[in-house]
């Protein structure tokens, strides 16, 4: 009797759990698994619009091959996306962590500063960001005004100065891209008990030591979350060139097969990058656990 009852509670638990997530599972097949499978299927075909719907002819890996051989845009854009990501993601992480540390300090106007730091998430995203970039609002005037450029040119050769200033401009973009990451770090910092710092202080640790021995290991998981978020974000941003290229291929030239193949190549590429990040973090995470 007793045993039977316990079993039925367990079964009920399983049924209840599945009924809560069944909504998502249903959507997963409808809006992700099946489309993903179909997009792979399309990528092996050439699809042509005909009076009775799309006509498909099997072409094998032709589209995958032509991405590397015939498409003059694919590889350069891929490389460009990769370079942007590699340079910007670390900067975003460092900047958002420093900002979160500053905003976590108790001071006047903390709430106000926090609201301001999140403002770019609203302004500088999607279509609005594109307009801003086009109108030159992403360039901070200090680099253009007051002849700073001319003054610097007397010290630094133009070949170096030009990319340097471009880099400085991309820094504003990095800062605008950091809103969500700052919030994630901030939330992480809040979970660290102040007792730890007190104890470290008693033992004579400096703030510098406390950061590396307490704060850094404690927010390691947030660094992983933020790295993943930043990477995914940089791959799907509105000013991502490869995405625009893909959309042009699909909806301007109606080349569905090639578009799908490109989508898959991109997807595989994103996964390799994320896989590398996971691998690197697993090692440093287990090292951090060992220390604790």
């Amino acid at each position, binding site marked *: 009797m007793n045993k039977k009852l316990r079993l039925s509670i367990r079964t009920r638990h399983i049924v209840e759990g599945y009924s809560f*997530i069944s909504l998502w599972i249903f*959507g997963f097949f409808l809006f992700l698994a099946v489309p993903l499978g179909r997009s792979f299927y399309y990528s092996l075909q050439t699809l042509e619009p005909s009076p009775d719907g799309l006509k498909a002819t099997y072409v094998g890996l032709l589209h995958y091959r032509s991405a590397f051989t015939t498409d003059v845009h694919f590889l350069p854009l891929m490389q460009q996306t990769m370079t942007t990501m590699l340079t910007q993601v670390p900067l975003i992480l460092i900047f958002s962590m420093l900002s979160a540390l500053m905003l976590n300090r108790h001071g006047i106007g903390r*709430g106000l500063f926090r609201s301001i730091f999140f403002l770019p998430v609203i302004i500088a995203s999607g279509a609005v960001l594109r307009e801003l970039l086009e*109108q030159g*609002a992403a360039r901070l005037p200090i680099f253009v005004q007051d002849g700073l450029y001319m003054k610097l040119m007397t010290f630094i050769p133009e070949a170096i100065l030009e990319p340097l200033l471009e880099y400085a401009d991309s820094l504003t973009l990095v800062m*605008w891209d950091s809103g969500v990451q700052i919030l994630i770090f901030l939330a992480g910092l809040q979970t660290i008990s102040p007792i730890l710092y007190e104890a470290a202080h008693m033992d004579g640790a400096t703030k510098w030591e406390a950061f590396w021995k307490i704060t850094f290991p404690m927010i390691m998981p947030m660094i992983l979350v933020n790295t993943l978020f930043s990477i995914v974000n940089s791959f799907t941003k509105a000013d991502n060139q490869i995405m625009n290229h893909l*959309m042009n291929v699909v909806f301007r030239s109606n080349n569905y097969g090639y578009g799908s193949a490109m989508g898959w190549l991109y997807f595989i590429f994103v996964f390799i990058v994320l896989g590398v990040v996971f691998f690197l973090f697993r090692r440093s995470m287990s090292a951090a656990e060992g220390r604790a």
Partner: protein
Amino acid sequence: MNAPGFALLKKLNLNDPSSEGARWQITVMKRSRSIIGSLFYYLVLLSLSFVFVYPLLFMISRSLMQPQDVADATVQWVPKSFSLENYSIVLDAIHYWPGLANSAITSFGSAALQIMSCSVVGYGFARFQFPGRDLWLALVVFTFLVPPQTIVVPLFIFFSDLNWINTHLPFVVPSLFGHGLKGALFVLIFIQFYRRLPHVLEEAARIDGAGAFRTYWQIMFPLARPAMLVVFLFSVVWHWNDTFEPTTYLLVPEFFNLAQNLAVFNGVANQNIDQVAQAAQASGAIVQAPTLMNQIMAGVMLTIAPILLLYLFVQRYFVESIEQSGIAGE
């Protein structure tokens, strides 16, 4: 940090009753160091804040300018001839009111549905142990990582077979199932939030005879307000500024949202500028290329105004909610 002060303390020998001045000196030193520290701290914070507010100031200032002000190098921020003309021009040019209605339906509709569905799913993951749970959870993360562009072709064909193109259904229906724009992220936020709530709450409700769904709906869901606010704001903002999905599924101007209308307006404006410039070149006359930057900036302002207003009202609770919602995860 303390080392130099400590050395000084030793040197001055504070036990000496006559060294009143030494004690004072140390206090001054400590104070001044902390004042310099916070001065530096606020200087950095303020200059960073400037970078963040800069685009907003830029847009407001430009949107109030007349073309001659934009061209005038002596005008930096404050236009010489203040006017709201740009706004009244752009209001019509970007079909503001229909666009606003479309933006509102897709953003607020999807956000509301995502709150409901992602919360249900998140609760299921957070509070129930069932076989296959880890696998499904891994698939949630997987969903977040798949670029939407990879599956856009089959989805487009799927939705057009259902005659959903040029309706709001491609936004609303996936949201209903906990998917849609960044749906997986919202599920994860809810999972983290529900995990932190004490189990005692549900046990009490269960003992009082409430079933799993009643416990969820009456006890747990209302408690998730911080997570709801976070998800709501993210979802609204991201939907509002998104052009990828709307340009894919909404193809006739009547259904365009504000971001799309703005892009169209910008395209037309650039074309006009090119034409004028070409005509000027052909005739050999030296004509300064006209600028519509002021109008475009007014358009951008109008596009994000509703979101800015919303943020103005919720920002105070927003950051608090982030901290409570456990968005950071474990």
